């Protein structure tokens, strides 16, 4: 149902965080210039922006490398997560087999695997990072999808039985549509995790050129303004993933109110 919004409510929703951001940046600039914090430790926002203008092409190409790793990991990890959840929800033995593995995956910090995978797949391969991102994405998609597949209401199950519907009909008519919002929640969580994992995995060696690698080399060579500029790019990348998955979710579920 379309609820009439208060006029200006939409604008306030966009403006409020922008105002907060501007105030924080202003305070930061003020503290560093007037408060006497060493520019070496914490560069002024103005200085960081100057560097951004200077290294923008490098930020873009680094973002593309890390973004591609995260995207591949997200797509493959989410696909495997959905398929595994479908298998687990329909066959109890598979559920019993997968559950402990997923629990183990959920509790270990997946990024900790990065050095191992980097060594396994060679120092010039991006595969280790993609695998880390994929593993990180798999867990929330699997858990949420499985949960969603078990949300079918008893009255809907009774109804489908009364209609003598076959199992694939039940899956299409009731089970999957019921699970869809849960699947998308899982993917939305996974999208942020995939970016974080792909980025952090670059801290542990492997080919250079990604955002994570550039952040760590810039910081190591005391180029803090440059490090911050790459951090900014990483934030933008994470946001882009989040907003993209959110948009896909809205598009897919738009027929419901």
């Amino acid at each position: 149902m379309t609820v009439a919004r208060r006029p200006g409510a939409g604008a306030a929703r966009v403006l409020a965080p922008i105002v907060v951001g501007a105030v924080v940046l202003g305070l930061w600039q003020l503290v560093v210039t007037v408060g006497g914090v060493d520019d070496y430790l914490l560069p002024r926002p103005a200085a960081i922006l100057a560097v951004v203008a200077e290294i923008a092409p490098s930020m873009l190409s680094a973002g593309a490398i890390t973004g591609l790793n995260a995207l591949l990991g997200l797509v493959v990890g989410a696909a495997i997560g959905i398929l595994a959840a479908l298998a687990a929800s329909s066959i109890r033995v598979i559920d019993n087999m997968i559950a402990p593995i997923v629990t183990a995956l959920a509790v270990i910090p997946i990024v900790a695997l990065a050095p191992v995978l980097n060594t396994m797949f060679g120092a010039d391969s991006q595969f280790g990072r993609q695998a880390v991102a994929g593993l990180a994405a798999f867990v929330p998609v699997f858990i949420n999808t499985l949960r969603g597949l078990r949300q079918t209401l008893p009255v809907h199950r009774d109804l489908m039985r009364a209609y003598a519907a076959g199992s694939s009909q039940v899956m299409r008519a009731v089970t999957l549509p019921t699970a869809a919002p849960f699947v998308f929640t899982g993917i939305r969580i996974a999208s942020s995790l995939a970016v974080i994992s792909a980025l952090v995995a670059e801290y542990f060696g492997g080919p250079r050129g990604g955002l994570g690698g550039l952040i760590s080399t810039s910081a190591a060579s005391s180029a803090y303004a440059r490090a911050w500029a790459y951090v900014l790019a990483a934030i933008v990348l994470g946001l882009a993933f989040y907003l993209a998955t959110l948009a896909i979710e809205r598009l897919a579920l738009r027929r419901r109110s």
Partner: protein
Amino acid sequence: MTNTGDDGAGSSERPRPASPGTATAVTVTGVDKVFETRSGQVSALKRIDLIVAAGEFVSLIGPSGCGKSTLMRLIADLDQPTSGSISVFGKSARQARLDQDYGIAFQQSGLLPWRTVAANIELPLSLHGVAASERKSRVGELIELVGLRDFADRYPDQLSGGMQQRVAIARSLAEKPNLLLMDEPFGALDEMTRERMQSELVRICAETKAAVVFVTHSIPEAVFLSDRVVVMSPRPGRVQQIVSMQLAADRTDGLREEHAFFDMVTAVREALHQGSPVSSVRGVENR
């Protein structure tokens, strides 16, 4: 099975034959239902015998937990009896379900929230491979029947509870079943909506000539709608008495204020309270 004392009220004659012929819609013979629970066995139904004629409206009434919903679920083949047999139009309950011989509605409307009103009514038709053009015309008829023409493209959460229930009833009628199974379909509605829905159901039944097994815990509702009211005892559920309604064939709203109506309400109430002190009967609404 005992009958009410007053003259003719307990006779097995049907005062309002809705369809010619002697075909029976539902035959329940010696049915027991025992549920296995963690704390042991619970006997829900004991030695139930019941015959519902074609076109007849039969209500099941009784206190909460008397197994009236369970009995309806057995007829629908949503559960299986522990012993005894059930036949629907001369077939096993399972075969009748597979042949789609009945339509069903529950207390929850059970609409699919991602489908429009029209698409919800269409659901059983599309599951059973009815051609698109036929589906469209049938859905149009049904929407007209339940008076929701202006709401065909709305989603369930845009409708009131009464409207949702009307959609569910339209859906249960989609395949023109000769038997309707209804489990407290108006249980969650307010009194005014409920009376309006009852009148609509009477009209719809007159048009479709379907037999109805209607579960309720409201005495006036059972009296207003039914040809016969099956009064069930508390757990384990048994048929305590079957009361035939001695009422005019056309059930209009005026009936609710007639003496004959109140007499029938009293007859059902007395049947309900028979064998157990009035104070111990719970879950029955006397409104």
